[in-house]
């Protein structure tokens, strides 16, 4: 019944109804029928959140953009297998999370070292190579920039199982239920992981809290 409804809505989508007003499920049904406009609308809605989420996971903008594009390609190619049991945001975040975790595992195997952080301090934490900028900056901008880098470093230092949960909750603002479906975990496990991640972050970011 739901599939029939979605198909009917998909037909309407390419006709009189605007793609802007369609729900995510309607757009997916239209993509399944080969509607390119619906796919562009999905991309328009989720390109920034997905790019930001992957960037928070990896702290590598270029790779984050590539993985965000890969996320949309997978949405397109597997649209026929999409089941509207949960919200589409849960579905697309799940794809992005899997890609990001896969990338983190690859980096761990290859021991990839970022060109921007080839050095470590006495504690083993990466220290960014920060060449002097001759331009004058306001103090507030400097502080905000330093805080942003500290948060990024703290997040990337977390174990990946905590990282995905805390980014989805405190950066992307997903509910515990959505995170549980995204990560295929129980809600209790998600809450436990977020609590531990916050405790770890509190130690690393105590100077900024």
């Amino acid at each position, binding site marked *: 019944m739901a599939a029939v409804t979605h198909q009917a809505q998909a037909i309407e989508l390419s006709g009189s109804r605007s793609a802007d007003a369609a729900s995510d499920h309607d757009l997916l049904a239209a993509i399944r029928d080969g509607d390119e406009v619906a796919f*562009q609308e999905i*991309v328009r809605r989720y*390109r*920034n959140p997905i*790019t*930001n989420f992957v*960037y928070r996971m990896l702290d590598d*903008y270029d790779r*984050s*953009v590539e993985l*965000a*594009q*890969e996320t*949309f*390609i997978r949405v*397109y*190619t597997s649209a026929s297998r999409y089941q509207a049991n949960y919200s589409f945001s849960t579905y697309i975040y799940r794809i992005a999370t899997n890609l990001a975790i896969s990338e983190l595992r690859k980096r761990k195997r290859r021991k990839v070292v970022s060109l921007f952080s080839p050095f470590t301090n006495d504690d083993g934490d990466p220290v960014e190579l920060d060449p002097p900028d001759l331009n004058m900056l306001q103090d507030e901008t400097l502080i905000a920039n330093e*805080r*942003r880098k500290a*948060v*990024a470093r703290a*997040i990337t230092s977390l174990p990946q199982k905590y990282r995905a949960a*805390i980014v989805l909750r*405190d*950066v992307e*603002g997903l*509910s*515990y239920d959505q995170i549980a479906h995204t990560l295929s975990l129980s809600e209790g496990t998600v*809450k436990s992981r*977020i*609590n531990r991640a*916050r405790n770890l*972050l*509190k130690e690393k*970011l105590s100077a*900024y*809290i």
Partner: protein
Amino acid sequence: MNSCREVRKLIDQSEKPDLLAFDVTEHIERCSDCERFSSERAGLRKLLASPVRVSAPVNFDAALNARLAEVKARRSLWWLSAPGYLRLGAATAGVVVMLFAAHYIGLFSKPSEPASQTGAIATGPQPPAPKAAQKRDMVPSTNERGDNSSAPPEKRIRRREVALGKRIAPPAVLATDDGGVVIVRGQNGEMDIQMPTVSVGAQPLLLVGAGRRVTPSGGRTSF
């Protein structure tokens, strides 16, 4: 009354930290440790959410469409871009199918004799059969038996060819009376059971036994 542990758990796991229950806020106002914990969690949440959100680059859609076009092209020609073992497997499967097809249409079998030559065998003098074939073949030829002179000429030809050890191509269409016979040998002697022609593992043999036919028109099948 909530304990500090329960209150902190509620603070930490709240979907909306600004909208805590009344008893929790009341406890926070009275307990300095829980108040500090609550402010720390609020500060941490604010800190994590505060970094400037990155956006997709302006060429995101163009690059995505280019990659998507590549994926579509790759999917349409997946077998060309498949790994070597997949291509090798596909080629092997193709060769096997061709061999089966060739075997099925009879490319590897002996060429069949022309009809005029077959007719000459039926009417003309019979060539001497090989000795080994005569010894091995317990079935007497039609002429030796002499009891089937009323059989149609086609059947006589076929039986003669069997006696000479020649290979006979099966008829294209089997009649209903071409069913086989299974010989079951038990304590009480032979027992003939009529069977349909299509039976697994059965080889149609013409004229098996001590020189007499059980059914006048059908062949025999023996396991």
